[in-house]
């Protein structure tokens, strides 16, 4: 028995060391730096009381949530479609879809400007059609567009891999029992893809929370937390505040993902 315990501890050791070195220690350090500024631990309170910080935290979460939702819908539909229907050029299209994966955030931001900026395509088309120029690249809508563009490729790939593993017999069984294509989607395909949606959605959300390059490129009117942290750190040299914000950003993201995961898990249990 004691021998068994020793073996377990030994096996846990590598994971434990990595976890401590790259997660626990930096987080602890960050936490203490956050409380070491002129205002002390009040820096943490300021995040909730100072509307600049609170608003940016909330809009960061909102834009990340919207990005995740939009990405999952778009990638879910296209991923299943691309996996099910092999047409000429299918493979080429899939490989092209994964293009944006390689781009840094700055490039994504630049593309958003080309599309929705002052000289952008959308502006020109809307001007020709309505006489009014639609420009939203420098707002949160532009950021949302950039994030969705950036998140779709990896989500599509995850969905396609999961769609390939769906058992076609399940869909046939449901249909034999009278299920319409819509019911098959709700009762078989979406539940079957759920694990993929959860993991891809978590990555998508976390990436959108922390993405910086795109926000930086589109800067003008956008106030998301990574930008605020950058400003505090470089312009105001308020290292303590930057650390406090980073710590809270990490914790809140972790919390949101944990809650989402539990909710999804319990809905599986409730359905089952």
């Amino acid at each position, binding site marked *: 028995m004691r021998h068994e315990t020793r073996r377990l501890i030994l096996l846990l050791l590598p994971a434990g060391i990595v976890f401590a070195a790259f997660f626990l220690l930096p987080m602890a350090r960050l936490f203490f730096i956050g409380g070491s500024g002129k205002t002390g631990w009040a820096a943490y309170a300021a995040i909730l009381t100072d509307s600049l910080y609170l608003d940016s935290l909330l809009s960061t979460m909102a834009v990340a949530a919207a990005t995740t939702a939009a990405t999952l819908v778009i990638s879910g539909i296209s991923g299943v479609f691309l996996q099910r229907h092999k047409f000429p050029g299918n493979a080429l299209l899939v490989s092209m879809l994964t293009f944006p994966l390689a781009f840094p955030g700055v490039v994504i931001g630049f593309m958003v400007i080309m599309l929705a900026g002052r000289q952008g395509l959308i502006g020109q088309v809307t001007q020709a059609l309505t006489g009014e120029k639609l420009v939203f690249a420098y707002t949160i809508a532009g950021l949302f567009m950039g994030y969705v563009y950036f998140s779709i490729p990896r989500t599509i790939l995850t969905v396609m891999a999961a769609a390939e593993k769906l058992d076609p017999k399940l869909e046939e069984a449901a249909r034999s029992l*009278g299920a319409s294509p819509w019911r098959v989607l709700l009762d078989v395909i979406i539940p079957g893809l759920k694990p993929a949606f959860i993991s891809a959605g978590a990555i998508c959300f976390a990436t959108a929370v922390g993405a910086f390059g795109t926000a930086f490129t589109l800067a003008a009117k956008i106030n998301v937390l990574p930008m605020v942290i950058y400003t505090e750190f470089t312009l105001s040299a308020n290292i303590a505040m930057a650390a406090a914000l980073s710590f809270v950003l990490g914790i809140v993201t972790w919390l949101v993902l944990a809650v989402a995961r539990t909710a999804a898990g319990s809905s599986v249990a409730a359905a089952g």
Partner: protein
Amino acid sequence: MTDTGNKPVSIALTNCSKTFPDGTRALEPLDLAIHAGETVVFLGPSGCGKTTTLRIIAGLEEPDAGGKVLFDGVDVTHLPIEQRNVGMVFQSYALFPNMTVAGNIGYGLKIRKVPDAQIKARVSEMLAMMQITRLADRRIDQLSGGQRQRVALARAIAVRPRALLLDEPLTALDAKLRDTLRLEIDSLLRSLGITAIYVTHDQAEAMALGDRIVVMEHGRVAQIGKPREIYQRPATRFVAEFIGTMNRLTGSVSNGTFTCKAGGIAWPEAPSSATEILFRPEDIRVVESGEATGLKGTVAAAFFLGDRTRLFVDVGEAQPLVIESTARRDFSHGDRVGLAIDPRGLLVL
């Protein structure tokens, strides 16, 4: 409840061929009539087109242009499966992993918007019928293979389908369970009186379950008939050899005697052109010592099976003869034995 599907349906295929988009010709033009309430077994080796035929009947595939599927005389060729009201049971069970056992069984009723109380009652009835009441709230991954197939059967019949289509439902189970479930399916089909089509490559299963058997070969029907007809009067060599064990002797006929390497067999009705005769192991026996016989062979192997001995007797042909002997006599390799064949069992194909 939608009870319209309670009456068994007759099914007819006319001129149904199937060519898959990749060019594979899975079925040659096929005509088939299945009577209301009968159990028909599609039997044949893997790849002969059994599943394809079943899927055409189910509505999961459409036959090539010109083919027709009729349910009670009504053309349903282009009606998708969800509107055909057929129950399906698959080899891989295909149970919904995100639902409990009860959820699976009640699914078809839920789709039909049957009131909850009625669903509950019907599900309990099904659970009791399949003897799985205590599993009602289990998740699918907590069930054994046999239990899963019981749930799949219950799910398929809960909606009172017009026909039940089963594609190798027992193939994934071990031998003992297969025998038990085969008996259960047999009595289930009989008590329901439902039109059932059962696909298998196992001839013992086909014999036990089928009112009629459709033997298939390379996308064609080789023979349709009652199990006894198929066994005793196979229409082709393929059917003869696919079902049960067949012995074979080559030779020629003269003066009402078939003569082969091992000797002669008196057979007054012998067709004069016969150069090969076929017969079952039960139509040949080893004669007692002292009994006269014109046919002799050498024991190549003897397997004592308890109730009988299975002999392989070399008679100078490519294949030794298979003979079932009573267990009383002890044989060993190399024994010379006299043989007697019952001419009523002889076939020429």
